[in-house]
């Protein structure tokens, strides 16, 4: 049986002092947590 999984990604953009935006891209995560017990409540 296929299990349900959650993929978490975080992206960040820096707002510079002149108002322009620098895209920092996706943070290079080493591990993610999904709140498994909450999913079990669904």
């Amino acid at each position, binding site marked *: *049986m*296929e299990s*349900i*999984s*959650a*993929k*978490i*990604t*975080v*992206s*960040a*953009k*820096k*707002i510079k*002092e002149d108002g322009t*935006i620098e895209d*920092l891209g996706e*943070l*290079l*995560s*080493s*591990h*993610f*947590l*999904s*709140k*498994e017990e*909450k*999913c079990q*409540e*669904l």
Partner: protein
Amino acid sequence: MSGTVSSNTRSSIVNALVNFGPQYLAVGTGTGTASATDLALFSEVQTRVSGTIGVVSTTTSGDTYQWSGTWSSTGIQTLTNLGLFSSKGSPIQDTLSQQVNSNTQTFIIPNSYYSWPSSYPFSIQVLSEVMQVVSGNGSTTLYVNRGSNGSTALSTIAAQTPITQVSGQILAKTSFTGLSLNTGDQIVFNVNIQIQ
């Protein structure tokens, strides 16, 4: 054998996550790798911030929960982890006064005993281990249940290791390669949780 979770189910789960209500972004500067048993960040800094919660489509319709918000750095620092919490309240943070010498030791001695609640139980995290504080001796020592929430009791924990109170329910946590920031830097974070 193959199988799949239907797009309707994915969307329903995302909607259920949305119905958990407001989530606040917390960031930390400590070292460590996020684990499913974590209930707190590694060395949380600054105050938690609110954001906008929405639903977006990544692979199938409405399969992704998205938190978006802006966070401003009040100092020169390198962020290493972040999380979404149900509570805006910042956790109590302290450090160990004395080393923990075994994975069966049922007390810890913090540096600032009186900064901790005097009503029990409450939970704390030390490195990767979650502990339940069940009582205190009134002046120096907190008595704990080790290895709570499915975490592993550590065999030794050095003096001056950070102790973080569990504050609010954690929805998600991530650790990452350091994000170096200067004072005043404003960062727009998008945290996506895609159900697959």
